[in-house]
């Protein structure tokens, strides 16, 4: 079958996602260094704890900004009502012959998008609070550390699944990050409604 390519992401969408991704990786590595005493050695990757934290702070700004940019780039697809459900998502993970009747984004991707947006928002706000800890007052500030930690774990789990499904789990998806295109077969299988209506 000759490869027919379908456009799925614009250059600016891809660039935003790359910046978001690289900033997340830097944040995760510099952040893990202060997550637990057993991970403290990771701060050595960035030339010691002072530099590691400074990098974490300023990379955080980039991550926070791209969280909004990416959400609004995809807002229409994220908020569009689909015909697929959470059950479809779980089933399509386990059954290769089943394809959810998904639009441009399937139910799972929408869930991920909302969590990435809300999680990025919480990480950014709690992160600023940790950067300037004497602003909020003691009681509230103590919760900021807990929330930053809890949402970090949540984001790591979501991103782990996101990374897997975007690469090894669904071959062909990685092309979106590289060229912004997917094959017609990919579009038809993974996003049949989108393929039928918009492509």
């Amino acid at each position, binding site marked *: 079958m000759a490869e027919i390519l379908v456009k799925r992401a614009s250059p600016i969408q891809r660039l935003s996602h790359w910046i978001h991704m690289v900033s997340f990786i830097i944040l995760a590595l510099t952040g893990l260094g202060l*997550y637990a005493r057993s991970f403290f050695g990771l701060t050595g990757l960035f030339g010691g704890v002072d530099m590691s934290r400074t990098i974490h702070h300023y990379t955080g700004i980039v991550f926070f900004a791209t969280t909004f940019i990416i959400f609004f780039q995809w807002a229409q697809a994220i908020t569009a009502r689909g015909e697929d459900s959470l059950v479809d998502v779980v089933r399509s993970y386990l059954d290769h012959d089943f394809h959810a009747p998904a639009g441009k984004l399937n139910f799972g991707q929408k869930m991920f998008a909302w969590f990435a947006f809300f999680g990025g928002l919480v990480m950014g706000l709690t992160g600023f609070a940790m950067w300037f800890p004497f602003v909020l007052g003691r009681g509230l500030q*103590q919760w900021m550390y807990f929330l930053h930690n*809890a949402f970090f774990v949540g984001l790591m789990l979501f991103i782990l699944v996101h990374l*897997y499904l975007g690469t090894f789990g669904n071959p062909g998806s990685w092309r979106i990050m590289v060229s912004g295109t997917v094959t017609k077969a990919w579009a038809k299988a993974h996003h049949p409604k989108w393929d039928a209506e918009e492509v």
Partner: protein
Amino acid sequence: MAGKMILIDTTKCTGCRACQVACKQWNSLSAVATRNLGTHENPPDLAYNTYTKIIFSEVEKNGELAWYFGQHRCMHCEDAGCMKACPVPGAITRDANGAVVINQELCTGCKYCVFGCPFNVPRYDNKNAEGYGVDKAFKCTLCFDRLAMGEQPACTKTCPTGALFFTEKAKLPEIASSAAQRGLKVYDGGSLKTNVVFLLKGEPEEYGLPAKPAIPTPTFLWRTIMKPLGIAAMVAGIFGVIAHYSYVGPKDIEEGDGKGGKH
């Protein structure tokens, strides 16, 4: 552990604040501008260069004035919130005497300990616009350096009335029973098991002490629950993904019949 403790018999305290001065002197701590708070209390608060401060508390008891003297200082908890919060190996340690000490050589200035303390003790020396300040956390060290030489802490050494008394932690039950005979309450931080123990005539709050001291709930959830749970969840997530790839396999659209299947 052959721990030590500072016993504070508040009934013997006269509010002379010699302990504050001795602390500043031994630890070479600079002076802080005083402020009139309407009491004899000064300096205004604990600071990176003020490790201890006498609390002057005026309370009404049965229609009469009671003047209580408390002390705001590091309590050297055996279950220390600052140590729980600290992310740097070795930056806050407890020695054999029970002294909880911040090592400023290792402190990275994250301020987690400042907010993890149940008694609001550690203070941060912020580098200001003129470049003064070292960006580290400070607090009472129980004069661990004096203890190492067989000396007692500067504050207990100097106390002229014996209100501050340095002794073996093992003597606490004995001291508690004699205090009970005198109608005094023993305040040892409850489950935190502080190595600074108060004998109080009134309620803890009347001495500026929390009635039920505990590691702050968010700090507990963060460091004791979420931290290990998070590591377990992330490791489980990685294995989960590997398991999916191994047992279910990728959903390969482009190979074969277009419906996918195991590769």
